[in-house]
């Protein structure tokens, strides 16, 4: 009996190890350094090379049945067309713990070949001498298209260049067109109100009160990190950062003396506080906003408790489908409006430093040119006008948000959305689709059409961003074309000295909330600002001026 038990246990052990060995056996590429294939980046490696990576994957990224992060249309194309096998050491599903997990990976010393870092991690890795100097690979093995991004934005790559050598390639961004925020308003309620003009703050307040009178609830949906409320700064001539984003908590401007200061130190900020406190007192802001996180804020919009919200251009994805579903009406969604101002003058769009992450290669990587090929391929598929995809390829690369599946080798054309918007809107207006030459354009067009024709809520986000005169990008393009913009005076990441401060944003948020809620008068803001300077603000302001004062 004992012998039988022992045999059974041994068999179980062997069986449990088999999947593990099978997983290792799946790796087919070599880790040995291979000669870089002659020709341009499209030339495949004759011997398959293996590249390791890690990835933060959005919760909305969906694969077809049987596919996964390690086996999907992208990984198969890399393998078939470039001879590169990409292995994921880990994937942060939901992308909420990526930085923490990456810090732990860095601490172990076993870095993947290619990965994305924030600027703090970039600085630390450079100090630790763990990153590969990419200058030669950048110049010789990367596609001309990506190198040309420097023409659109010559400054961002300087932030990952150390002593004249490139140690990181910016992931870039979809263009400054995606930066200005809008005031989003329930379309059906707005039309019921007679589609009034929204030029002044008074117009906005009147509409908010009308909504409250007709539909109950409150006027403007915001949350307790004040990310959304701070978006209304341009209404009052102040430009504020995002308190919820540790890397971009403050927006920096030059005062009359040329000194760079945080937007919260602008004299007009008190005007904003005065209005916000008034809105709270009048019920335009919910009496319970201090308890609202993003989910609760969205929930209130979906349930019809509020009909206005300051938000980014992607609001249609965030609120749209749920709102339409919950209200059971194709007309119950929110549309973007430019922010009104006190005297009805033109509002300015706020443009901050847009790049968040840098693509880096570990010093231990044996085939860095393969990483350049992967970046070039991904860019070629998504943004190159000469790329021709079959219907099947197009769906494979983009359905289920799979355009983001490349993860650490996803690079974005910094003019992407500007060009995309013009073509998508033109196609939607004329029905002429031959100029939709990138996968991104086809996707946004297809999604918009699915909303316009079939009222598919999944297409609402694209439609509200790009699909009609008055959409979010339409408003942004107007600001850009007419240079109605307020650009930050700090085109780069926060300096290292910021790490020596302790939660300065807490001092600000607490003070601002107390003023809004009427616990303290607006004049109390002088004390809040003094505390902010005393508890780290001064260090930050000095560091910003030292690093960017001559920019």
């Amino acid at each position: 009996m004992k012998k039988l038990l022992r045999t059974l246990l041994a068999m179980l052990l062997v069986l449990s190890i088999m999947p593990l060995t099978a997983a290792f056996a799946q790796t087919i590429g070599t880790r040995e350094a291979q000669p870089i294939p002659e020709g341009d980046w499209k030339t495949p490696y004759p011997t398959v090379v293996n590249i390791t990576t890690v990835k933060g994957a959005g919760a909305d990224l969906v694969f077809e049945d049987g596919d996964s992060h390690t086996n999907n249309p992208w990984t198969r194309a890399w393998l078939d067309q470039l001879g590169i096998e990409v292995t994921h050491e880990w994937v942060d599903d939901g992308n909420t713990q990526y930085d923490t997990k990456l810090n732990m990976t860095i601490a172990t010393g076993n870095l993947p070949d290619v990965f994305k870092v924030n600027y703090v991690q970039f600085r630390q890795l450079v100090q630790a001498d763990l990153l590969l100097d990419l200058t030669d690979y950048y110049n010789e093995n990367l596609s001309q298209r990506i190198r040309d991004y420097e023409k659109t934005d010559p400054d961002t790559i300087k932030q990952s260049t150390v002593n004249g050598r490139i140690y990181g390639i910016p992931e870039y961004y979809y263009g400054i067109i995606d930066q200005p925020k809008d005031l989003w308003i329930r379309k059906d309620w707005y039309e019921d109100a007679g589609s009034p003009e929204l030029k002044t703050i008074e117009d906005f307040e009147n509409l908010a009160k009308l909504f409250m009178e007709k539909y109950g609830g409150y006027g403007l949906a915001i949350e307790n990190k004040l990310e959304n409320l701070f978006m209304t700064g341009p209404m009052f001539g102040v430009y504020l950062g995002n308190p919820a984003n540790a890397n971009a908590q403050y927006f920096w401007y030059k005062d009359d003396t040329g000194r760079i200061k945080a937007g919260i130190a602008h004299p007009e900020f008190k005007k904003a506080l005065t209005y916000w406190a008034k809105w709270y007192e009048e019920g335009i802001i919910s009496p319970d906003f201090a308890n609202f996180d993003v989910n609760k804020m969205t929930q209130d919009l979906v349930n019809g408790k509020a009909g206005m919200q300051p938000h980014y251009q992607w609001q249609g994805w965030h609120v749209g489908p749920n709102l339409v579903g919950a209200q059971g009406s194709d007309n119950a969604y929110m549309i973007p409006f430019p922010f009104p101002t006190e005297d009805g003058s033109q509002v300015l769009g706020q443009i901050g430093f847009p790049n968040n992450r840098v693509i880096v290669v570990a010093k231990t990587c044996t085939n860095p040119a393969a990483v350049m090929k992967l970046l070039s391929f991904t860019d070629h598929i998504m943004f190159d006008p000469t790329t021709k995809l079959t219907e099947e390829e197009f769906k494979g690369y983009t359905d289920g948000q799979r355009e983001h599946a490349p993860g650490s080798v996803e690079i974005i054309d910094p003019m992407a959305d500007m060009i995309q918007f013009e073509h998508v809107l033109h196609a939607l207006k004329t029905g002429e689709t031959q100029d939709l030459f990138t996968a991104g354009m086809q996707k946004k067009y297809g999604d918009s059409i699915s909303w316009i024709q079939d009222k598919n809520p999944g297409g609402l986000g694209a439609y509200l961003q790009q699909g009609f005169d008055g959409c979010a990008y339409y408003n942004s393009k107007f600001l850009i074309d007419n240079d109605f913009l307020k650009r930050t005076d700090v085109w780069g990441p926060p300096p290292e000295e910021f790490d020596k401060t302790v939660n300065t944003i807490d001092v600000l948020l607490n003070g601002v909330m107390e003023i809004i809620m009427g616990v303290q008068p607006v004049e109390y803001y002088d004390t809040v600002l003094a505390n902010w300077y005393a508890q780290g603000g001064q260090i930050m302001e000095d560091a910003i001026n030292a690093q960017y004062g001559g920019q």
Partner: protein
Amino acid sequence: MIKRLRYEWPYHALLLPGVILTFIFSYLPIYGIIMAFQDYNPGLGFIGSPWVGLDNFKLIFSTPQFLRSIYNTFYISLFKIVLQTLASVSFALMLNEIRLTSAKRIYQTIVYIPNFISWVIMAGILLNLLATDGMINALIKAMGGRPIQFISNRSIFPWTIIITDVWKTFGFGTVVYLASITSIDPELYEAAVIDGAGRWKQTRYVTIPMLYPIIILMVVLSLGNVLNAGFDQVFNLYSPAVFPTGDIIDTFVYRLGLQNGKYAIGTAVGLFKSVISCTLISLSLYIAYRFANYRVF
């Protein structure tokens, strides 16, 4: 010794997984404490990161928010302990007076159930109940009162935390005290009855004095935990509006260390808390031994 071990080895073997896990998850990470004395850089690791001496401690002690979080932690914890003990003992005494066993069990179960609900769920329920247009405020308004901002008023928030925690957890204490009451020698009650004591005097002069040792023990053991004011509860209920009174050490460390990635400063705060907690635990064990004859070792 070896002979005894030969006899007892199965029990030691049963302990082994727990010991190994404790070693891996509780002892090995102690090494990370050195981060508190470094300008920690994950790329350079524990060995290569530059030493900064006590700079991280100087920074946190010069931060009013940190000092405030220490005060808040003590304030919330101490009131939780006091009120929880009072509520548990009182309810146990009342339950003890119920003669109908089934009713007693029902009440006991009802007060015990909230103890098993996580604070994530409970916070969601409380945020709705205590909202300006929530059930509690609707009741207050119906009685002619003004709505109270239980969650966002900084003067009220600590008491919302204390009272909701007492409500959630006093059922557990009740079970412990009720168990102690049932173990009181019935002869004491018989003697009291012979001396003419009614129900109230039996409670006052027999039950409560006999509960003193367990009350002292429970309170003293709680003292060792006084720097844990309930991270999951506070984290799910607080907001920047109540930082001055609601931010506790654990939430402060979470924002600093994890949300802002300042591991070294976060570790310095954590180490400070651990040292104080260790002292308090030692003290509470000593007091428990001295006054309740309770020994762990």
